[in-house]
């Protein structure tokens, strides 16, 4: 293919990706209840309405809690499991890895519903804790993939060299493994947090009376008069996410960016 044609295509594709997303900020500043052209002037009142909505604030805090707990737990679990499969010769490691990755191949609705049934069967209430459990299913495979790649990317001799130079397993972890894994850990935390923060269906079945942000948004979509406000919320989420990604990239550059092989 000619590189010029290809470049043209690339920009067209980029437009396809961006146009729907840009609908959010554009109409969030539009001074009209109706989402239609022509635009009818600039306003920030939708953002004001957001700030005044206490139900939203509660949903946001629920989502942050669930997202942070899920990110920390799934990254810790992923770190241990990734270390196990990359640094030890374990019988059945492949099967275990397959089992842990299974949720990638199961529709979210089935994950959510089956957990809902289990909670009902053992008599546990629906709660944010149940949402975290459901989100772990979705997030641990992601964390594991990211962290295994990182573990495989660095020379095992580095950990041996540390032991050889007199450090025990714990100090080797803190002086070598952790700093070298930091970019992977950051990526895993970010990926799992965003996945959990954005997850709707599992949370929808498991959250009970405590709405998370996507559940709140889902509820708002039925009311046309509240749409501009929801779009404003989407624009904020987009802005914060982009800032977060840039910050994570900055942290990554503070760590090691060069090839992580000893030779």
């Amino acid at each position: 293919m000619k590189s010029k044609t290809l470049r043209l295509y690339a920009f067209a594709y980029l437009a396809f990706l961006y146009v729907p997303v840009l609908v959010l900020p554009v109409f969030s500043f539009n001074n009209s209840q109706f989402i239609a052209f022509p635009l009818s002037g600039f306003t920030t009142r939708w953002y004001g309405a957001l700030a005044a909505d206490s139900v939203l604030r509660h949903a946001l805090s629920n989502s942050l809690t669930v997202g942070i707990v899920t990110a920390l737990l799934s990254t810790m679990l992923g770190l241990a499991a990734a270390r196990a499969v990359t640094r030890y010769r374990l019988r059945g490691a492949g099967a275990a890895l397959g089992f842990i990755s299974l949720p990638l191949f199961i529709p979210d609705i089935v994950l959510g519903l089956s957990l809902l049934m289990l909670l009902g069967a053992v008599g546990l209430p629906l709660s944010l804790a149940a949402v975290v459990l459901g989100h772990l299913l979705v997030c641990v495979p992601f964390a594991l993939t990211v962290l295994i790649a990182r573990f495989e990317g660095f020379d095992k001799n580095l950990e041996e060299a540390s032991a050889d130079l007199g450090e025990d397993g714990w100090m080797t972890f803190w002086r070598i493994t952790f700093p070298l894994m930091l970019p992977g850990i950051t990526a895993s935390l970010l990926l799992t947090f965003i996945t959990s923060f954005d997850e709707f269906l599992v949370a929808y079945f498991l959250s009970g009376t405590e709405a998370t942000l996507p559940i709140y948004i889902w509820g708002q979509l039925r009311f046309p008069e509240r749409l501009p406000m929801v779009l404003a919320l989407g624009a904020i989420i987009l802005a914060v996410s982009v800032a977060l990604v840039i910050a994570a990239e900055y942290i990554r550059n503070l760590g090691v960016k060069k090839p992580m092989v000893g030779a």
Partner: protein
Amino acid sequence: MPNKGQSSSEGYGLLAPTLVVMGVALAAPLLLMVLTSLQAQSGPGFAAGWTLDQYGAVLGRASYRLLFLRSVAISAAVTLVTVALAYPMAYFVAFHAKHKFIWLVALTIPFWTSYLLRVFAWKIILGYGGVINSALMRLHLIDQPLGVLLYNPFAVVVTLAHAWAAFAILPIYVSLEKIDRSLLEAASDLGDGPLRRFLRITLPLSMPGVIGAAILIFVPTTGDYVTPALVGGTQGTMIANLIEVQFNSVGNWPLGAALSLVSMAIVAVIAGLFLASARAAAKAAR
């Protein structure tokens, strides 16, 4: 590999917490789902005894069969469209872009906002009073808003192709990026023109990324709930919507469980067949 071999118990110890969580949150619920699917709803509880009635109902009813068929067809179309659109994009970034990193960031930023709102944005774009219609009206290209844009399988396909684009671009990009550039030079040196070289070297070597992307998109989109609910209308309803209704509105848990398991099985069989045929094709090509 400190103490490799000897301390495999240490390795199992590291693996155990994750396996326990997965056992509690995945294996146990799925087992319960299987058991539930073998029962029958009776008022708020289940009737005594085991039965295969739910599976009979799932497989026997034509409307259900149609729904399964439509879900798979929509998903297959989404997979095909998404991968086909993403491949040239990934190819451009891997081989022609000057600032690869900036391109990758630019391609992923749209995915850093709410999935619900990304899907909903298409409703705004395609809707009766939406962006496309109001723009076309404004330009006097049409007198009446077009009703055919929204609430049909086409809208579902477009929306999902947009929502899952990153899952196609990234794996394909990674597999293209991995190709040793000297292989391409060798192909040229041995007389291949750009097109032959692409077909004989680049495309086959990037197939792992294409196959990975296809699986990564096909499996979850078959069970997608949000998109058909928002932009599908009655013509675009998919299996997940039916399952949700069984659990929330109808209250027939055994039937919902059976529908879930059958759809999982269908997806697994199709994905498995796809992988097997891809592997066979790769073998035959060798």
